[in-house]
């Protein structure tokens, strides 16, 4: 046990709003006064969605904002299966529980140089949280945001609002920003030089590309990984991530934020 961290516990939360923000993307705001102030950007919650007892496990979700003063937590999530569909149907006022805080936050260091945050798809959620952290610590940053298509894009305004220098947008089909991948845009940014750190979250193949580009450019890189999870707090051992040194680490306890260098891509 790392005694410096808030231990993971069970918290009651109430749905404040739950609404679409893009095609297939929802934003839920939870009221959780006893939890919001304990959350650090990059950590996640394991959310119980009541209703269907045939789906026993909770749903791990990152958050984009956790506001200690209002006690509110914002989560942007994609509706991909039955659990997230049922979550999307939880009306204002619904009460449920979350297991939180789970995992480790993004690591920034005082006086850190200019950074880039890179989000692919719904990876935007912890990236907005990361941008919030950078803003708070007054670390300058640019952003790259990618989506399949314009309709599924979300987060550009949020990142701009948090003070991103430039926000480069890419879509697979070119319907917004430039056609192509976030990695292309990132490579161009890094080629310009002057960056100290990259933070990325998105599909694993994207993060592998980001890691490679950063390694080549000699820029430090942290990634937020996903795994199928049962518990979210180190009890089950199912969320293993293969490390470059041949060992496994647990995505929920040792991650979800990893140094890209340490992951076996």
């Amino acid at each position, binding site marked *: *046990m790392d005694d410096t961290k808030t231990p993971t516990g069970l918290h009651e939360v109430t749905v404040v709003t739950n609404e679409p923000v893009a095609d297939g993307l929802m934003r839920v705001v939870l009221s959780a006064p006893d939890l919001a102030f304990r959350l650090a950007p990059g950590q996640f919650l394991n959310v119980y969605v009541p209703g269907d007892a045939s789906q026993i496990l909770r749903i791990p979700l990152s958050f984009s904002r956790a506001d200690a003063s209002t006690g509110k937590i914002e989560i942007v999530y994609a509706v991909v299966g039955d659990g997230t569909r049922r979550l999307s149907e939880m009306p204002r006022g619904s009460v449920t529980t979350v297991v939180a805080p789970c995992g480790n936050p993004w690591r920034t260091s005082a006086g850190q140089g200019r950074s880039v945050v890179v989000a692919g798809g719904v990876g935007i959620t912890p990236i907005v949280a990361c941008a919030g952290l950078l803003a708070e610590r007054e670390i300058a940053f640019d952003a790259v945001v990618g989506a399949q298509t314009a309709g599924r894009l979300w987060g550009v305004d949020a990142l701009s609002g948090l003070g991103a220098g430039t926000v480069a947008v890419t879509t697979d089909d070119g319907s917004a920003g430039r056609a192509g991948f976030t990695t292309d845009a990132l490579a161009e940014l890094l080629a310009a030089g002057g960056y100290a750190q990259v933070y990325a979250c998105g599909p694993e193949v994207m993060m592998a590309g980001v890691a490679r580009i950063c390694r080549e450019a000699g820029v430090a890189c942290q990634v937020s990984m996903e795994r*199928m999870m049962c518990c979210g707090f180190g009890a089950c*051992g199912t969320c293993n991530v293969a490390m470059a040194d041949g060992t496994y680490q647990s995505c929920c306890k040792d991650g979800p934020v990893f140094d890209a260098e340490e992951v076996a891509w």
Partner: protein
Amino acid sequence: MGEKNPSAEGVSLAVDLGGVRMKNPVNTASGTFAFGSVFEGFFDVSRLGAITCKGCSAEPWPGNPAPRMCEVPSGMMNTVGLANPGVAAVVEQNGAYLAGLEERGCRVILQAAGHSVEEYVAAVELIEELAPWASGVELNISCPNIARGGALVGGTPESAAEVVRAVRPRVRRPLLVKMAPVRVPEVARACEAEGADALSLINTINGMSLDVRTRRSRLSRPTGGVSGPAIHAIAVRMVWEAAGAVKIPINGMGGIATWEDAAEMILAGATSVTVGTANFYDPTCAERIVGELAAWAAEQGVTDINELIGAVEC
């Protein structure tokens, strides 16, 4: 509602699981509770009768690649593959916490895993040497025997007997045997005959889940172990069969998520009731069940939970 003892406070909950003296019947299942400490943020773990730790082997095992889990209706499947850092590292990292838990009144059961009789022996010898504070040792015989082409160590009465026979003289504490959910009465009798002090069952039931688009397993292995509410009724039946086959006590598990599930196990013949998969999604349920079982016992009009063990009427 029982008349004799309307108050749950008056009910004695202590049970004796083959020499492991538990203050109440609630235990946790190996591999679902890590080494206990990660649950302290949810409740005071020492409120439980016992905890059973993740299986560990003499040498570290990496376990299987991801994905190690997938969901099935009312359950889940895993193929963790007994990943563990080895007995020595387990004791080094968790010994202080676990010895303290024993002092706080919660029994600690360490679990030994192996791929061959020799590996089991090596694991229990290390446990005996390094973890004198633990109240009991559980032998997980649901592991594949590498020398026998991966056949389950606990798959036949003969192979189960072989490993229990080899390990028994080396364990000076209560020895529990964690059975695979196959040939239950026969294997149970074989383990009892070789000197097991108690039987733990059931381990996960082997299952297979395929992605019909990619034509691949949803796990990194073709098959995995099904656990959770989906297997509960099967587990109750197996506990009932085992309890009918042997005299040693049964540590019952399989899909326990509520006090009713636990009470069923007790009625079917379990001395202790062990929460597994439910710890993942309802991490406070084990502690809650302690109090709820007391209330049930009071409602049933008994003053000692032992009166309800095997008390099914059929």
